[in-house]
């Protein structure tokens, strides 16, 4: 395969950055929801758990 180094850097960075951002969103959401009263988490209903 030609240009393998460029492809690895381009694809690798994209997947790594996307994955890290997704993990950061999930972590931030967990931390915040623990601090907000249950009745104020409007979209989270028991049947969606």
């Amino acid at each position: 395969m030609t240009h393998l180094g460029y492809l690895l850097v381009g694809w690798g960075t994209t997947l790594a950055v996307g994955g890290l951002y997704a993990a950061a969103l999930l972590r931030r959401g967990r931390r915040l929801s623990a601090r907000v009263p249950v009745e104020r988490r409007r979209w989270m209903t028991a049947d969606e758990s």
Partner: protein
Amino acid sequence: MQEINHTGSRTTRLLGAAVILGLVVLFFLGWFVAPEDDEQQDAVRMIFVHVPSAIFTYVAFMTTAIGSAMWLLRRSVWWDTLAAAAAEVGVLFCGLTLFTGAIWGRPTWNTYWDWGDVRLVTTLILFLMMIGYLSVRSLGGPETATATRAAIVGVLAAGIMPIVNRSVEWWENNTLHQKSSLTDGNLEDMTLFTLVVGLVVWGLFFWWAVLHRFRIAWLERELRSTDLDRALEERRAEGEPEGEKV
């Protein structure tokens, strides 16, 4: 009500699972099935991450522009929150577009960057404007004023998007960038199919990320409101005579 300590829901879990599955399929198609290009050889495989990132940059910033306009017109908190969520995800995609474009440019144009290239420079300006949007939001101060200032930046940034998008047509002699990969009809069938798969996967990830980011922003707003309510109650309690305190 059951206590749920996360921003997930059935919808986001389905989207997340589809993204992971889609990425596996995209990787397989993009690296092993799609043919190499006559001119670019295997460097063409960068198209499957670069073009979806670019297209969902537009989708994200258009969402921000619409949300910003709705805030300015109707003072809708829901739209303002959506605008902010889409802006952050859009900055991520725009950064990836610039990065993967530079990496792709080296083997195809023999350079990572060209300051004279209209598409590259206008995309960078758009990226910096949206970083400005996020910076305005993080400055603090009264929520209404912050949202209004950010919304003005969000709407202004939308104005540059047609220039970014059409730059390869309007200044075709002043850009290294090729014309639209999707519409110029030069792609092999399998390359085009894989690109469409990439667009679907990026679209699913975009909405997954926007949903989570929206809920985080909503929680932040609720938390500020809860803290304010608590502070007001404490102030009221301090002001009451000893005998009347509950």
